[in-house]
């Protein structure tokens, strides 16, 4: 199955953002956590968002669900703008959009038992007539995500990270959403468990036709799961392309550096010098309108420190924001 082609055939995006911005006021000024990011997610597909810590990827994911209110820009679900939805409308909306969090230890309430956690959303949304029905449905969801039913009345702290993350998945599924933001769902897990969860997510996608935004800092994971990737740097989208294009032909120097930095479990690569880029990520507080990567970039020229590079199309469906791409 060629997944990339099926992507092109999809006509309308399920979820899209247009110039989404989220600024925070902080001690020293305005933090541009997400700055004019536009992206589209198609039904049954996965959009990967990659970036290092502090690049705004989590904020982006949360803004799409309006868990943090975006500063400006538009969010559309099936073409319908949801930015100005009231609290009540949003509550309706959230049945269709869900989120899975990074940390399986802090994302589920330690004072509720497993089945309570899974049933909670159904109870508050009155998805079923009775609490009992919600609990029964929750039990079935446990089967779906591969949690033994004997764990139903157990408290989360008695479970390992993998199982806890399964609870998170089950909870996200409980309202039968069409779209899920997966905010680094596997980065806190050991590799063997990570693989279990990745498999689970992909199986569910296939089964239910879910659309994912998959946020991660791990390029190998994002390559594995997504069809299209957005690379973010300091709140900006620096490159957006189909997975295969991005890995075979990265255009932005940052993407290149990222790819080069991944330690591969392969000693044949060993002789190769590890490619490193200088410097470290800073905070996008009161950023100047210049290329945000310029100070770490090998290619940086005068223009990089003067003009902000626009996101331009450098190939079919391949967007990059660099003066030299």
């Amino acid at each position: 199955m060629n997944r990339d082609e099926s992507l092109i055939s999809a006509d309308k995006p399920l979820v899209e953002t247009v110039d989404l911005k989220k600024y925070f006021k902080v001690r020293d000024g305005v933090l541009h956590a997400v700055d004019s990011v536009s992206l589209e997610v198609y039904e049954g597909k996965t959009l990967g968002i990659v970036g290092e810590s502090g690049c705004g990827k989590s904020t982006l994911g949360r803004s799409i669900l309006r868990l943090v209110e975006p500063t400006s820009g538009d969010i559309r679900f099936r073409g319908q703008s949801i930015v100005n939805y009231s609290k009540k409308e949003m509550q309706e909306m959230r049945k269709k959009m869900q989120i899975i969090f990074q940390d399986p230890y802090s994302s589920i309430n330690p004072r509720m038992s497993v089945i309570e956690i899974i049933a909670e959303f159904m109870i508050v949304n009155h998805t079923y007539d009775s609490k009992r029905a919600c609990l029964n449905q929750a039990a079935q969801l446990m089967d779906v995500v591969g949690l033994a039913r004997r764990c139903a009345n157990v408290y989360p702290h008695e479970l390992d990270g993998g199982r806890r993350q399964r609870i998170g998945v089950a909870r996200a599924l409980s309202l039968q959403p069409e779209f899920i933001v997966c905010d680094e769902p596997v980065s806190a897990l050991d590799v063997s468990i990570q693989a279990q969860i990745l498999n689970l997510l992909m199986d569910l996608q296939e089964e239910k036709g879910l659309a994912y935004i998959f946020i991660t800092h791990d390029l190998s994971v994002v390559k594995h799961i997504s069809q299209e990737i957005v690379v973010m740097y300091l709140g900006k989208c620096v490159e957006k392309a189909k997975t295969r294009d991005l890995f075979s032909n990265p255009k932005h120097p940052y993407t290149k550096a990222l790819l080069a930095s991944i330690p591969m479990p392969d000693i044949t690569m060993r002789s190769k010098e590890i490619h490193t880029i200088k410097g470290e990520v800073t905070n996008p507080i009161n950023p100047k309108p210049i290329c945000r990567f310029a100070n770490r970039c090998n290619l940086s020229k005068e223009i990089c420190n003067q003009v902000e590079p626009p996101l331009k199309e450098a190939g079919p469906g391949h967007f990059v924001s660099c003066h030299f791409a």
Partner: protein
Amino acid sequence: MINRKTCPMEDNSQVIYKKPSQLKEIARRMKKNKPAVIGLIILTIIILMVLFAEHIVPYKAAITQNVKNRLEPPSGVHWFGTDGYGRDLFARCLHGGRISLAIGFSSAAFSAILGIILGSIAGYYGGFTDGALMRSVDVIAAIPSILMALAVVAALGASQLNLIIAVAFSRTPAIIRVVRTAVLSVGDQEYVEAAKAGGTSDFRIIYKSILPNCIGPIMVQVTMSVAQNILAAATLSFLGLGINPPTPEWGSIISESKEFMRTANYLMIFPGLLIILSTLSLNLVGDGLRDALDPRLKT
């Protein structure tokens, strides 16, 4: 890893929903903490004795004056001796404990309820609500609490209820702060965000997701504040702004005994020891609770 003891192999097809209790876990940890157990035993004994005071010594003995038998030292008849009116000190201490503990507990409960409501509102909503609330708290907290309580009692008049209000009023800022801090720390957790994502109402988030998770520090603070309130009430009584006589209360018994310091010091020693015992045991229980609720601290 799974704790196999709590996750027994069951028939997988059957979900037996039960409301599981985490109290058991806390109780188990408390049981391992010997000082806390001792504290709890002492506290229980004191509370039981105070509750069943009427069956041990009738209240009448605490208020019946007998000037012929005044200031008798402790004996088989009067275990703690008699006071300046010839009233049985043991009965007075026992029934006085009722008032003292009632003030301690109910003012703690009062300030706990108020503190939890205001503290969680401040912590959860933040912004202006938080700012306004916390500034008022700053103001009240800037007044020395005993003086504050004194002024309130003086304004409202001395009665058990007013004493409770006064003590609670001066204690509430501390509770609000603790609750707010706890709520703030829990409010950052992702499960709160998850609850929002699931369309849970603010109220439900607070009472279902936030409060249960910060009840630990709050409980500890409240337990400790019972002890502090007993001391505060005793101090108020000692300063003469306490409960109306002849109702006994530990602080006022000590206050009355002051003049007999030289001639009958048992009058002040017994109620003093009772205050110490009850605050001590409450502190022990509070310590134990803190350790039990925060396994991190245990090594």
